[in-house]
């Protein structure tokens, strides 16, 4: 079959839809792309979701609040239940239930009633319906009369909480008392936990060390693996040092100490120079970084004679005094400038002039 086609058409026909499956890592890399991750988070964020979230949080906290209240009430009830288990004390159950439903102000009054009632029921078993009798007694008896009827000091002490009532009842049942004591005096950890402290966040000058320490820990482990309680670091960039400290009770805490590094001096002055024309260190020229203004440098001999003066930071001393070569030895310099924060700074020091022979 003979065909006649433009070369471009041939390639287009064959290659326009040419497909080849890419390797798997391409899609993985696309998914890992930080820009895309950011975009997806932004794009999928919506106010509707935010409100749903807030509503959910609100609902859960309300639910938790009620759950907690129930829990507290149940805890009180538990104490009562311990007593309820005893068949002999059925009457007491009823009295206690009655008591719980009373408002707080009435507690002392009601308790008194209860206890007096209990005593009655136990001394006089022939009493047919104790619960009812409570109901009947309640409105009739005045607080004063109750106190007069039953002025036991114990009752005075045991006013506020249901637990205490439980104890008072248990007093009459020695077997139970032990259990209750055990319940109330739950052994607590007597070990006092020593708090752990670490150095505060600090600011240091670049090229200077910082001392970091941890107090109160039984052992520490820094992020770099060292286990010293005190550590001297010299970060060249601001960094966070992380240390895991173990308290004396065996628990761990993670502490972070932020060390901010700042350029305290923006000018570095060399300590020597060699004006011998070899192209290396031929000039006495401070090195600077950042914004510097109002720069001024003066170089003196040891005797105080001024040998060089400039206001141009890029212009250094070539080791000559009015055209002739200066002697080898020490010279003094004074530099004054304004740093990047527009603060005036001064630096003084000495520089050695060498000539290689």
């Amino acid at each position, binding site marked *: 079959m003979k065909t006649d086609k433009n070369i471009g058409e041939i390639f287009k026909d064959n290659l326009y839809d040419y*497909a080849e499956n*890419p390797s798997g890592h391409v899609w993985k890399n696309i998914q890992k792309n930080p820009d895309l991750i950011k975009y997806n988070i932004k794009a999928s964020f919506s106010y509707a979701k935010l409100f749903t979230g807030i509503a959910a949080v609100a609902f859960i906290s309300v639910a938790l609040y009620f759950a907690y209240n129930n829990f507290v009430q149940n805890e009180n009830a538990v104490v009562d239940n311990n007593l309820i288990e005893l068949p002999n004390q059925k009457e007491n159950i009823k009295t206690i239930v009655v008591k719980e439903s009373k408002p707080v102000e009435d507690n002392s009054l009601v308790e008194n009633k209860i206890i007096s009632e209990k005593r009655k029921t136990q001394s006089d078993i022939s009493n047919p319906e104790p619960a009812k009798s409570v109901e009947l007694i309640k409105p009739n008896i005045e607080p004063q009369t109750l106190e007069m009827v039953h002025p036991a000091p114990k009752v005075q002490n045991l006013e506020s909480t249901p637990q205490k009532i439980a104890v008072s009842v248990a007093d009459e049942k020695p077997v139970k008392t032990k259990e209750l004591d055990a319940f109330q005096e739950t052994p607590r950890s007597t070990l006092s936990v020593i708090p752990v402290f670490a150095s505060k966040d600090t600011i240091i000058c670049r090229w200077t060390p910082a001392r970091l320490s941890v107090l109160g820990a039984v052992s520490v482990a820094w992020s770099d693996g060292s286990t010293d309680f005190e550590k001297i670091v010299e970060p060249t960039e601001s960094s966070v040092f992380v240390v895991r400290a173990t308290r004396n009770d065996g628990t761990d805490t993670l502490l972070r100490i932020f060390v901010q590094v700042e350029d305290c001096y923006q000018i570095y002055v060399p300590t020597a120079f060699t004006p011998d024309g070899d192209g290396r260190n031929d000039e006495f020229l401070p090195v600077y970084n950042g914004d510097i203004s109002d720069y001024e440098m003066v170089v003196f001999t040891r005797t105080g004679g001024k040998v060089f003066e400039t206001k141009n930071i890029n212009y250094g001393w070539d080791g000559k005094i009015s055209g002739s070569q200066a002697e080898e030895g020490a010279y003094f310099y004074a530099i004054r400038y304004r740093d990047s924060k527009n603060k005036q700074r001064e630096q003084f020091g000495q520089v050695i002039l060498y000539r290689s022979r």
Partner: protein
Amino acid sequence: MTDEELVKGCVEGKSKFQQALYNKFAPVMKGVCIRYSDTIEEAEDILQDGFIKVFLNLKNFRLDGSLEGWVRRIMVNTALNYYRAKQKSSYHANIDEIVEIVEDVRIDNYDKLNTKVLLQMIEELPPGYRMVFNMFEIEGYSHKEIADELNVSVNTSKSQLLKARRSLQQKINELTESENKKMAQL
């Protein structure tokens, strides 16, 4: 899933839709990237960058156009960025700008040529020829567009295309000749 649903899901940042869009277009787009690159690795790099651009810019895509065409355009642009970056890093001799009359090269027996072989031929072209040939013949750019994209003159684009065609023509001829020889031997 229709293109419309795909675009909507991707714009909303849903990973599932992005993967669906990727699965739909990645193979063909890899085919595009191969034509514009020197190696498979480079092609996949372009593919990867191209798809990230697609996802980040899909919100600007208007649904009245072809999604595939739009994605393809982004792939070609990404490939051209790679090409330009490579050109900067390596010295390239100036391209002579002799304009020749573009003759219509015609091929016999083109149906013998298989896709892989054609792809191989494009791969073997010098990068400059390859870009122009791909853009003009396959993606359908005009010489003006090519000149703008590659930062060359329209005449350069034309002469590059011509040379690319000739080179391909020669390759095809060689191939058919060897085929014919084989046939004769049988």
